């Protein structure tokens, strides 16, 4: 077991995010709500800070925010395409599928970035991440065209990973 080192910076970021979510849900500025929110956020932040891994302060730099907005739109386009793809496959009488599990390697080394990439892959056309072992992604592909890891990487992950690499490396 690795002993966890408490860092105040991370604690404050966790606290602020939990507090923002609280105010988003209550949407009222009565003093009682504000004080309850602060107390509950402190408790939750204290419990969850060692597993909380998403929000470095560097993510708030303007260039990174721009990358995030770009990522959001790329992702939204892929999500729409994925749904039209599902609709097409489901409504075609012959059920045109050719499934298999393929593998590719990622260059990302940040856990949160890996999770974002895996989620994006799951929500894009015809692919579903099954497992991540170190830096290998195992992906169920509904219409396999190639088994070569490099080709797979180019077809599935490249547009997302390019942007994530710019943010995290």
């Amino acid at each position, binding site marked *: 077991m690795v002993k966890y080192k408490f860092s105040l910076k991370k604690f404050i970021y966790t606290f602020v995010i939990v507090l923002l*979510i609280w105010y*988003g*849900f209550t*949407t009222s500025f009565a003093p009682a709500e504000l004080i309850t929110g602060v107390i509950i956020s402190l408790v939750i932040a204290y419990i969850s800070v060692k597993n909380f891994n998403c929000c470095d302060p560097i993510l708030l730099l303007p260039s990174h925010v721009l990358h995030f907005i770009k990522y959001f739109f790329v992702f939204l386009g892929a*999500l*729409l395409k*994925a*749904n039209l*793809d*599902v*609709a097409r*496959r*489901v*409504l075609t009488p012959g*059920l045109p*599928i*050719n*499934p*298999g*599990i*393929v*593998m590719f390697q990622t260059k990302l080394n940040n856990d949160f970035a890996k*999770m974002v990439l*895996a*989620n994006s892959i*799951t*929500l894009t056309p*015809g*692919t*579903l*991440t*099954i*497992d991540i*072992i170190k830096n*290998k992604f*195992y992906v*169920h592909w*509904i219409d*396999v065209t190639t*088994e070569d890891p490099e080709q797979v990487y180019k077809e599935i992950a490249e547009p997302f990973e390019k942007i994530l690499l710019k943010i995290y490396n």
Partner: protein
Amino acid sequence: MDIIHEILKYIGLVFILIGSIFLFLGALGIYRMPDLYNRLQAGTKASTLGAMSVILGVGLLQPFWLIKLIIIIIFIGFANPLSSHALARASYRAGIKPCCDKEIDSYGKAVEKQLKKIQKKLKNLTD
């Protein structure tokens, strides 16, 4: 003020309609696909966009709820793919093999490797 409210109402209704169409297609996909992994594929994508779209539509009908609903949408965007990923991983390890004649499966070897490692460790512990 009233006109804006009316316009928002109709946009919201369109979102709810689109969302329910996608949810229906997802259900049809779950019914038609041959095995678990393909069903997860259809189910995850359609239910994510469908739920997001319906919730956003409700938010436009009731603008006071919009902030809460956007938080819920973000949560669905993270939690939905994660849960399907967990289901797929668990069912592969429980022994459900992917279907169909053509066998393309690079994951099986990796799982076997991990299992062997764990067995070795257990042996060392018991010895």
